[in-house]
């Protein structure tokens, strides 16, 4: 890792409540700037936690974007989490770009097109506009706002994790290996 994460032992006083024996490197590194962690965690919690958008769709978005952005930590971690949310092996492979995405149907198909348009390294506004038009036929406005914010936040975290070389947890690596994902 490029930045030493804080641990329970040296956790700053103002953010100690975020720490336990199992605190991960994302929280550990953000705690280098306690006031940033204090603001970031509720923001991330709102977007990555339970909300009007289902966890299945959230994991589709996060994993899909992370693969497109080339973030190893987010890809590996969210492959496990997406599986836990019930995504099938075929769906996971589609999100990894290893299988035809026709596995997603109806509103999930247009969601996937939107993720592909928005998660690309260089965003083509015409492509995004077309994907958005299709999205609006299947999804409500407030859902589209959440989806779009989640894509943006995932990209932000992807770049953070790539730059800091955040390592995937041992337990996730073991699971991925057992499933033949490594």
């Amino acid at each position, binding site marked *: 890792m490029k930045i030493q994460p804080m641990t329970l032992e040296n*956790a700053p006083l*103002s953010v100690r409540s975020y720490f336990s024996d199992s605190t991960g490197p994302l929280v550990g590194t953000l705690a280098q700037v306690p*006031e940033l962690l204090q603001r970031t965690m509720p923001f991330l919690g709102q977007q990555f936690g339970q909300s009007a958008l289902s966890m299945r769709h959230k994991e589709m978005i996060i994993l899909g974007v992370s693969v497109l952005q080339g973030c190893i930590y987010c890809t590996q971690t969210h492959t496990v989490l997406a599986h836990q949310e019930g995504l099938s092996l075929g769906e996971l492979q589609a999100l990894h770009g290893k299988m035809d995405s026709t596995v997603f149907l109806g509103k999930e198909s247009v969601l996937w097109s939107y993720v592909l348009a928005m998660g690309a390294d260089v965003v083509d506004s015409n492509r995004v506009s077309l994907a958005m038009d299709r999205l609006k036929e299947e999804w409500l406005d407030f859902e589209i706002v959440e989806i779009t914010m989640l894509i943006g936040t995932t990209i932000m975290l992807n770049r953070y994790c790539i730059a800091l070389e955040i390592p995937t947890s041992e337990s996730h690596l073991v699971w991925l290996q057992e499933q033949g994902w490594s």
Partner: protein
Amino acid sequence: MTIVAEYNSLIEAGQSSGRLWLYSNYHCNLSCRYCLTSSSPQSPVRGLSKEQMLEAVKQARNLGFTSVGITGGEPFLMSWMPELIHDIAQTLPVIVLTNGTMLKRKEVRSHLLKCVDLPVQIQVSIDDPDPTINDINRGEGSFHRALAGIPWLVERGVSIRISSTRIFKDSATHEQHDAKMNLWMKHLGLNPNDHVGRTMVQRGQAAVNNLGASVEWEMLPADLTLTRMGAFYSPFGPTYIEGKLQTDMLLSRTILPLEIPLRHLVTCLNSMDSSVRTPGAKTGFV
């Protein structure tokens, strides 16, 4: 309730002294065995700028702070320190913690003379009137170097107090030591009331050398402390062990505007059961 009112009520309740501490720098011309910040001539400067310190003091007055403390490292290694002390004292009373070795310098003396009528106090660290005992922890020759500049300043009305770090375990020895210090201070022309005994805290270099008392952070004075590395809960917070900052008392990396770290301090204090906190002055962690 405004942050000013909240902080003021904490000062009134004895939860904070109202002093803002500024770590001007971390390097030092001595290498004391118990130094909290593991300061030495080899330490990186890690300095606050003169402008940052002045701005912090200006904001501190508006937020209800009642005094300023400057510490390091050795603050007088910063060439602009004497002038800065004079400037800060126009805004708030200031105490400067020093090892005393720079007080003989002309440029330091001339500025300190200008502070005679201002609320400025210079706190010199001398652990014992016996140079041999003093120099055990503070380094050979440090006693005479520390003492050299003091009489001249005292004669001219500069307010000097002596701080001795207590290295004893029992209170009887403390009392004997205090009596010895008081006698010595009288001899120097200093008021014995201007002696402060500080309990050695086992952090920084003291922890490396297994010296001092192990102390929970709740026992330490909750006085906002600014450093180049961020804002801390107490002046005992921003310590270093083998080049690594101890972050357990870190509040925020943002130091200015001062209201930001002050809010973190107030939040911490308000979230604590005040009955478990013992204000620093009562425990000797001053």
